[in-house]
């Protein structure tokens, strides 16, 4: 495999509702920032790949106009996944393995405020047997949380502690939407949203965007003194039907983690794309991350959750900590689909 690294990351501040800007306008400063941070322009990019969703925008081909944030002229070599940007990054990483291009720009944008996100996400479900019932993602996550608490003996207090810790971490993240000091006991006095989940167990609804630049081999070293080398990246999917899965575990995360080589060497930090508190605990177990691993120093998806973006942001946040010297080895994770159906794991390291 060719050595490929994340050399730059930028993100828009996540907000509940960005009334002043459309997707292109949210994205443009992010793309500019990520390229400017390396002193390069779009003409230095060999491959571009993005992740967005038409259903969020309520418009066919919404990614087409998002291209205007890049300025695809003269024509560029470009592709798009209808997935979280983390999968766009996987496609770009594969493309860089061919050896004929050395740099890739990956971006994702999601403006959840364009519609009712809970209704929109329920349209991800089996269109003949499940979606007509309109089960929303919070209700589905609550089923998962209930099963998880019953199997493991963990408590709602454990979940509240996950929320409180992420919110404290998010205080240092200017892009975060939810942050601050909260007492888990007080959080538990809030009413249920859908039992056993309270508001703090759920992600905020966010508008946002993020972008990374990948570079291969010597080009990565030219662009960044301390690149975050991708030592392994893999993704796996599970069955769609909730009834055919053990929702309290994430075997696809475990498998992707094994393929990406998570274990074997110590992990300093992990950015886990867990939109719900109990999912952080499930993912942590699935990846075998011990108590000495700092989980979600950014505050994670509980602090900012722009759909289609939050997974790529996990990779960017983890890479940023390797680039800055804060971490030597980091794990990033992205998820897609109801109740952690599909998962991607990426291992990032500084050079030895």
């Amino acid at each position: 495999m060719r050595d490929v690294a994340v050399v730059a990351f930028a993100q828009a501040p996540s907000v509940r509702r960005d009334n002043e800007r459309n997707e292109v306008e949210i994205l443009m400063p992010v793309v500019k920032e990520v390229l400017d941070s390396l002193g390069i322009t779009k003409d230095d990019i060999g491959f571009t790949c993005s992740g967005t969703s038409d259903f969020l925008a309520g418009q066919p081909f919404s990614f087409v106009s998002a291209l205007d944030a890049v300025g695809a002229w003269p024509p560029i070599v470009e592709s798009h996944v209808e997935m979280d940007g983390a999968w766009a990054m996987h496609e770009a990483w594969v493309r860089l393995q061919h050896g004929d291009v050395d740099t890739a720009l990956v971006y994702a944008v999601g403006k959840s405020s364009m519609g009712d996100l809970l209704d929109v996400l329920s349209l991800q479900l089996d269109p003949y047997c499940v979606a007509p019932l309109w089960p929303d993602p919070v209700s589905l996550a609550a089923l998962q949380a209930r099963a998880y608490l019953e199997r493991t003996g963990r408590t709602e207090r454990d979940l509240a502690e996950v929320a409180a810790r992420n919110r404290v971490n998010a205080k240092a993240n200017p892009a975060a939407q939810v942050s601050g000091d909260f007492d888990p006991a007080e959080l538990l006095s809030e009413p249920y949203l859908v039992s056993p989940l309270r508001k703090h167990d759920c992600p905020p609804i966010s508008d946002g965007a993020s972008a990374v630049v990948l570079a291969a081999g010597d080009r990565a070293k030219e662009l960044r003194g301390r690149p975050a080398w991708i030592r392994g990246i893999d993704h796996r999917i599970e069955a769609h039907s909730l009834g055919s899965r053990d929702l309290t575990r994430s075997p696809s995360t475990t498998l992707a983690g094994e393929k990406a080589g998570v274990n074997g060497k110590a992990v300093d930090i992990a950015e886990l794309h867990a939109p719900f508190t109990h999912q952080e605990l499930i993912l942590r177990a699935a990846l075998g991350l011990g108590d000495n691993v700092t989980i979600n120093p950014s505050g994670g998806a509980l602090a900012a959750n722009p759909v289609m973006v939050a997974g790529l942001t996990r990779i960017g946040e983890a890479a940023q900590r390797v680039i800055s010297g804060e971490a030597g080895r980091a794990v990033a994770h992205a998820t897609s689909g109801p109740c952690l159906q599909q998962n991607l794991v990426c291992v990032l390291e500084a050079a030895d």
Partner: protein
Amino acid sequence: MANPCAVIGIGQTKHDTKRDDCSQIDLVREAAQRALDDADLTWRDIDAVVIGKAPDTFEGVMMPELYLADALGAVGKPMLRVHTAGSVGGSTALVAASLVQAGIHDRVLTVAYEKQSESDAMWALAMRIPFSPPLVAGAGGYFAPHIREYIRRSGAPEDIGIKVAVKDRLNGVKNPYAHLHLPDITYEEVRDSLMLWAPIRYLETCPSSDGACAMVLAAESAAKTPTPPAWVHATAMRTEPTMFAGRDEVNPVAGQECAKDVYRQAGITDPRKEIDAAEIYVPFSWFEAMWMENLHFAPEGDGWKMTDTGATAIDGDMPINASGGVMCSNPIGASGMLRFAEAAMQVRNQAGEHQIDGARLALGHAYGGGSQYFAMWIVGAEKP
């Protein structure tokens, strides 16, 4: 280019207006199972699945690959969902090929589909209201001005579109999977059909179809199959913005550069002479003439002459869309992959009644958006 990649299995559904005999699951499995059978493989042999389709609004399912994961045998495997507008079927095959070329996987199943009867494709394609003024309804309204401009520039006779429509429909009769089978179609019938978006008549328009296409792509070590594989000689994608002052929408630069890139990779200097068969994305008949120029088969302004002289006929010197093409079947998300697959079928001598004798090198072409997304590959009978 990196590692060799071979097409070892090809399958497609019977395309039709409304496949109400099956769900989306059945539709993709019908194509995928045929591709596996062709490759003499089982679901278990597949390392990863790459799926593509056009806008999710066509079926009203957000990211339907999540729901299709079980049906496509993807559980426990990587699954990727590509969407690059109308070119998506082609881009999906290229992303799948990229996984093999990069040495990540040995056998990748790639599938593209559309079940357009689950919604109204014309309105699903219309731009959002109220953010953009609804100036056009569906793709025909969008592309008609491009065609009018082509006719103005080239001075082409007004019946070129009619001739393409008749030719492709008669080719489609030879293709058992084609949606439209119109063996009795005539020039007069096309000419007298309803004008929808001048100069596009009803019979100069593609149908709206339900259908799927699948291929198994393999590394050299896994390219041992009953039917010799098609080898991927070149792949390219290009994108340009939808609109800006001075953009040439009739002969887009992205398409020209994409074509030059695949010819360069495949070592082709005279495409019309060296390529034996081409399957190109022609959703409205006039696009055959336009793409002949964009693909450098004819000098600018002369593309229509290839149709007029019969060069693009199944027995012509540059057969275009021997399968009947998009004019006979248009499950939009799958249409690009059908072009790529039909090109591979030609060099594998698998095309049955619409086989071009002795085809050794073939071009698959797809485009999308406002003539701004291009995906192409060149496949050959010999390993490059």
